Each structure stands twice: as C-alpha cells, then as structure tokens.
C-alpha cells in the first residue's frame, strides 16, 4: 500500500482478491456512540489486519440475513486493526447496524474506490467544504492533513448542516475551533428552536470566509448531499477556483463495490471504482455527474 496516500488509484486490489471478491471478513463492533437523533459513531475491529484504507475510500458493511451497504470510512489512515464510521439509520442494513451492541460482529469488504489525492495537495492550502454527513468521509482526509499539518499551508474547514441537532463530531469540532492552525467555520440551514448563536444560512454563505485564499494555491474538497455540489461549485467559480483545484466525493447507490453490478454507473464511470473521489475537472463533462 502506498505509504503517504498520494494517488487517486485503488491500490488494494490484490489484497482483496485473495478470496472471493464477495466474501466479507468479520469485524467486531468495539465502540458505539450516538451523535444525532439518527447518526451514530461506530468503531469496528478487523481480526487479522488493518483495513489499510486511504482517506476518502469506503467499505461494504454487511449484516448476514439483512444485507450489505457501502459506508464511508471516517478515520484517518489505519494505525491498528480498528476503523471508524458514522452511519445514519435510514434503511434496513443501517437499522440493523444501529441495533448492534459492542462485541457483536459485521461483515466487511474493502476498502474500495479512489481516495483524496493528499500527496498532490502538498504545499497547497486546503479548503474542506462539507455538508451534513459529508463531514464523515471528509474527516478521514481532515485527520490525515492534521497529522501531516506541516505539508499543507492554510487549512480551512467549512461545515454546514440542516439544524443544530444534526451537527456531527461536536467534541472534535470544539478542538478544531481552538486550534490556531485551522480555520473552522460552520453554519446551519435553520436554527429551529435550538439554542444557537452561530451562523444561519446554507453552506455557500460560508464561502466568503475563504476569500483570502489564493485559488491557484488552494484545493477545495467538497463532500455533501447531491444538491450541494452545483451551488458550491458556482460559488468557487465566483472565487475563480480552476476546475483542476476542485475535488468532489460523489454518492451513488452501490451494491458490489467492484465495478460489476452496474448500479453506481455515472455516464461511463463506475463511482465505486473510478470514484467516489474525482477531480471536478475530470467529470464536469459527464452529463449524469452533478
């Protein structure tokens, strides 16, 4: 595996191919913590190996008898056999995962897909633009960049969610806010009845915070719900970001994770293999992309 995770290549193919590509390994749930009314944090532990993922990759998590679902990996590069995910309880598989107690197990296949090209971003400013649970996959790159902080210049994180009850990683966010080598800004679409003193407005209202960044020296990384991309990219264009400096992680329904089943096809690309991380420059001509 590539040590400093520079490439957007998938590099685990041979490891995964030792067995049937569809046979999961067993991982134990080691930690579980509620984050919002419907999102929980999970730490899983593989038996024999570190997951060995690159920031931005995903894995297929399954509960035998219920099914399998592609889930983003939220932790930074593996230091031991554990890895972290934040999972929203919305479907049958995620519902079953939420019902697990520590000590119980899941099936894991992966890691799959492309990663954030952290090596190519060295020496540049980083601008993370995240919406809702988009913070979950972005966090794998945020943690990586924090660990290699000296490799990057300015480090901006913009985070928006629907309302204050849907904020994720709130403890970590408090720490990020305190750091003087990271600029963290957040907003909520609606304040509702929550006590909230912060910004109110959609994620694009935070873009002016990044105005001081020279677009030619900055890479923007966007992860959020499908509706967000078009508007954030318009905002970045207003700030004169070149398309080569915009990186997106896209979501599609996936089943196999290995470019066979056809579900995640987006024009001629398979998001599970050619993505989920793309340079916007490479997909802007694809008609089904954004």
């Amino acid at each position: 595996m590539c040590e400093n995770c520079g490439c957007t290549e998938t590099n685990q193919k041979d490891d995964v191919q030792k067995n049937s590509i569809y046979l999961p390994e067993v991982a134990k749930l080691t930690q579980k913590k509620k984050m919002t009314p419907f999102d929980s944090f999970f730490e899983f532990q593989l038996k024999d190996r570190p997951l060995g993922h690159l920031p931005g990759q995903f894995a297929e998590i399954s509960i035998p008898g219920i099914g399998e679902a592609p889930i983003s990996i939220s932790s930074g590069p593996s230091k031991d056999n554990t890895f972290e995910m934040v999972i929203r309880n919305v479907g049958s598989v995620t519902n079953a995962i939420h019902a697990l107690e520590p000590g119980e197990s899941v099936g894991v296949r992966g890691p799959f897909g492309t990663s954030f090209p952290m090596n190519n971003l060295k020496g540049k400013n980083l601008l993370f633009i995240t919406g809702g649970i988009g913070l979950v996959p972005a966090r794998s790159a945020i943690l990586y960049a924090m660990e290699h902080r000296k490799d990057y210049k300015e480090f901006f994180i913009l985070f928006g969610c629907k309302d204050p009850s849907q904020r994720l990683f709130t403890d970590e966010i408090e720490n990020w806010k305190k750091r003087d080598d990271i600029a963290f800004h957040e907003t909520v679409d609606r304040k509702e009845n929550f006590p909230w003193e912060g910004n109110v407005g959609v994620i694009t209202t935070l873009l002016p915070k990044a105005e001081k960044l020279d677009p030619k020296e900055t890479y923007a990384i966007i992860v959020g719900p499908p509706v967000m991309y078009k508007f954030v990219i318009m905002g970045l264009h207003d700030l004169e970001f070149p398309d080569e400096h915009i990186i997106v992680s896209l979501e599609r329904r996936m089943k196999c994770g290995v470019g066979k089943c056809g579900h995640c096809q987006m024009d001629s690309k398979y998001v599970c293999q050619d993505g989920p991380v793309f340079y916007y420059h490479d997909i802007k001509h694809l008609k089904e992309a954004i």
Partner: protein
Amino acid sequence: MATERKILKKESLGPLFEKMNAAGKRILAPRKTGEQIRFEPVTSANEIAADFVQSTASAKWAVFPAVEEMLSFRSLDKETKLEAKQSKPQPTVVFGIRPCDAAAFKALHAVFATDYKDDLFLDRWEQITLIGMSCTKADDYCFCTSVGGNPGSTVGSDILLTPLANGDFLAEILTEKGQQLVASLDGLFAAGGSDIDKESLLAKVTPKFDAKQMKAKMDAVFNNEKLWTRQSLRCIGCGACAFVCPSCSCFDIQDERYGGKGQRLRCWDSCGFGLFTLHTSGHNPRHTQAQRWRQRLMHKFSYGPEKYELPGCVGCGRCSRACPTDMNILGHLLEIAEEKL
C-alpha cells in the same frame, strides 16, 4: 488457432449427446415448452427444439444465473460464520447457441473478468464449451449485422455448426476447448467440408446501421430529452428487456435468512427499474423512465464500447420480442442512427 472444418452427420447427433452424457457433461440445449423455447438440461438430441429463429430466453444463465448463491452464513450463539460458495460448476456444453448469443458471452466475460476477477462467473466460464448453430433464417427483429455480428459468425463459439441442405452440419472447430471436445468424441466428426460455401447457407440479415458510428451519435443526443421521453413514453419499467437480454450483466445483491442460516444471493437486475439507482435518502439520480431508457441505450452503445471495446448489444432482438408495450429497440436505434430526431 486456425479454424478446422469437419462434417457432423445428422445420424451422429444422437451419439454426440450420448457420448457427452457418458463423459459427465451437462448439456444445455434449446427445448420447447408450450410456446417458449429455453436452454435447459437435456440428455438426448431428440429433446432439442427444431426450426426456430431465436430462443425465448438466452443461454446467459449458464454462466450468469438469474439467481445464484454468493456465500452462505450460519449463526451459532452470537457468532456468525460466513462461507464462500463451495460447489464447483459441472462441465457444461451449451449446444445450439445462436452466434449472437455466443458473442454476448464475450461481452459478459469482459465485464466479469476486467479489473476485479468475478470468481462466481469465471468458475462457470472455465467449465463451459459453446457449440454454436448458425442461423438459416431470421426475422424482422434480428439485427446482428448492424452490431458487428452475422448469422454465421464464429465469435464466442468453440465449435460452430452450420446446417446443410441434407440435414448434416458443417462443423468449424474454433478453439482449443472445441478441439478437446471433438477429440473426446472420437470419430463422430468426419473429414470434409472445406469446399462448402457457408455464406450461401445463412440467413440474410441486411445491416441497418453502423455500430461503430453509434457511440458518437448516442453521445450527441444525450441531452435530447424530447427524444428519450418520446421513445420511452410507453415503457412501464418492467425490466423484461434486461431479463431476456443475453448481454445485460447488472445484478442486485440480496440476503435471505431462514432461522439461523441463509445465503447472500446475486440476482439479475435492470437499469429500467426506478429502484435501481434510488439512494436511501430518497434522492434518485435517474428519476424518470426517460433517463432510465437512455441509460439502457447509452450503456450498450456508448459506455460499454468505450470501456471494453465491444458492443454491449448483439442484435438478437429479444428485447423487442419480449416487450409488453411493443417498444422496438431497432426502430429506436434507427431514429438515432439516421438522426430522425
């Protein structure tokens, strides 16, 4: 390898099946049940359907079954044990497969063998030998010659038989697998056939469009929403086209559990279904039937050729024959090919 020609006498057909049976091979051949002709296990040449243009369903399931086990699991106390599929596929001969369907096997192979190796498919693939049967007649739904095939195409077959007027067959031995099978059936294939004008025996299928130009033409009409809406207006999203298609490879993964044990299954799926791309959040990147119809044609005529350098459609015409609302893929393709938009 160089093609070798031989003659298979009509009276050798019976012994051919007997010997293959005796050698422990499963034989799949077109059989007629009611109005339907399907590839099913047979033991004798007498069971084969005679005189038909195209089987109702393709022989695709021989390498890619409609439903198959991917793995099994069982729970003991709190532990769940996962097991890869253990049974090895039986050596199988598909007899009487049409040249279009044999070409479709190649298209399927490209999907399942590129990048990650799909062991479920490839285990079956290794055990299969295709004895093709050239077409001596065709109907208005056939368009193999527009997508690189022809009624006597050898692509994909290990042995290709072409019926002769006297009831015998011209046999072309095309691959090592074919050679091995012929060698194992000592003496059933007789010398001869080198002077036969094969072309004159085949059905005439006039090319209607050029598949090589289709990618550019498809890409050019991608944003023509009116076209896709008009073409798909009748589509009820039933997926019949995908289920009879010999080259459709998309699948779903579903678990079934009975008490403490069960299986993970792979099942055919269709891009024509609204659920195919539906996210759990409710967002659907292809939320209209027009988008889904467009995906079907784009996949076969633009994306597939781009990725695998093979057409994703072999012109068998089954989708048009099976469509309950009478959508005709050839008619729709011609609109695009002839730019009658």
